[in-house]
């Protein structure tokens, strides 16, 4: 399942952030996004996920192929780990949460409410969600935040297994995950910040 991006221009609110972004990710391959804080990694990932329409350019991927994981964990504090995962499995039309639980070692926490877990444990649950989406292209925004070394390794193993199964991933991260078949993509040359000319608020924003 390949992802091709051609000449993509992305915006966040009234401002254009990136322009001319072009890359391709083949099945079994990972793309590591690099760029300074505020360069536009999140904006690019949100555009890939379909949350923000691109200003220009094309994103070519199979429909419903992309699974997105944001900074926010997207967990319900009142629900248990199992209930949170079961909800996402249901929303994505998948049945089994077993492999996801195993990959991130959530077994001992299954009945714990998400609100009572540590930040790292929440992150593991949030990443386990990717496995129950059943989608081939993962777009991940700083997935290793608040994970300890052991769980970063678990995450890297999960991504490696996903790639080996023919999936692909676009990952914004500052650390080295040690993934095989990973190409690094620096977005710095594509940063093109300006107020959108077509934006009705452009004048007011100066």
């Amino acid at each position, binding site marked *: 399942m390949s992802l091709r991006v051609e000449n993509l221009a992305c915006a*966040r*609110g009234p401002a254009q952030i990136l322009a001319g972004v072009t890359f391709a990710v083949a099945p079994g391959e990972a793309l590591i996004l690099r760029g300074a804080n505020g360069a536009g990694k999140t904006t690019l990932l*949100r555009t890939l*996920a*379909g*949350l*923000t*329409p691109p200003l220009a350019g094309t994103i070519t991927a199979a429909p*419903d192929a*992309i*699974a*997105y*994981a*944001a*900074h*926010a*964990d*997207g*967990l*319900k*504090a*009142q*629900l248990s780990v199992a*209930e949170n995962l*079961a*909800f*996402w*499995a*249901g*929303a*994505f*039309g998948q049945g089994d949460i077993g492999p996801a639980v195993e990959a991130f070692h959530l077994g001992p926490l299954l009945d714990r409410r998400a609100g009572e877990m540590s930040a790292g444990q929440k992150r593991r649950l949030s990443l386990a*969600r990717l496995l129950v*989406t059943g989608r081939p292209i993962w777009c991940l925004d700083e997935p290793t935040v608040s994970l300890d070394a052991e769980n970063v390794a678990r995450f890297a193993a999960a991504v490696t297994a996903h790639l080996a199964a023919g999936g692909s991933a676009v990952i914004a991260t500052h650390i080295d995950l040690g993934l095989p078949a990973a190409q690094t993509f620096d977005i710095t040359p594509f940063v093109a910040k300006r107020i959108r000319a077509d934006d009705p608020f452009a004048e007011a924003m100066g």
Partner: protein
Amino acid sequence: MIALLKRDLMLALRAGGGFGLSLAFFLIFATLVPFGVGPQTGVLATIAPGILWLGALLACLLSLDRIFQLDWEDGTLDLIATSPVPLEGLAAIKALAHWLTTGLPLVVAAPVLGVLLNLPGAAYPWLVASLLLGTPALSAIGTFGAALTVGIKRGGLLLSLLVLPLYMPTLIFGALCVVRGAAGQEALTPLLLVAGITLGSLAILPFAAAAALRVNLR
């Protein structure tokens, strides 16, 4: 989508989910009225239909800002938007969950409060029927308002200002139906108008809410 409905109902019933909040507000509101206007049964019987409808409407309003705001704050809304669930379906399910946890308990509680307000006996079937047919419209309109204001910090007040005028037709015909029922007059016409408003809201507003969500998620 069924998973979504199940999750919303589960969240509403868990501690801090807000289930019962609207119902408690409705009970207190209707109980306070006799203290405010005095215990004369004649006066109470005259104003009971309006008070009960107004109370149900305000109780509905109370829980509207939770519909999308909580999911938006913890990032769930972004993730649902990238899931196979269409945003139109999400809006419809959210309205349904809101009605099941807010509207339906109000419909059940209203006849009890009718007794408290000395509502004439002939009006009870019309009260229940008009609330049963009218509260889904309140939930659908409220979901649309919540979608418009999602992402605005403390948007609850703005939400009330947006939604209350849109509630007016439902309130007018809903209360009129009960008033006419209480007076022994023909009450089917306003009831049908309430049903019409509900059907129209249910048909159109999930699409409008989805469009508003798309803009707000950018």
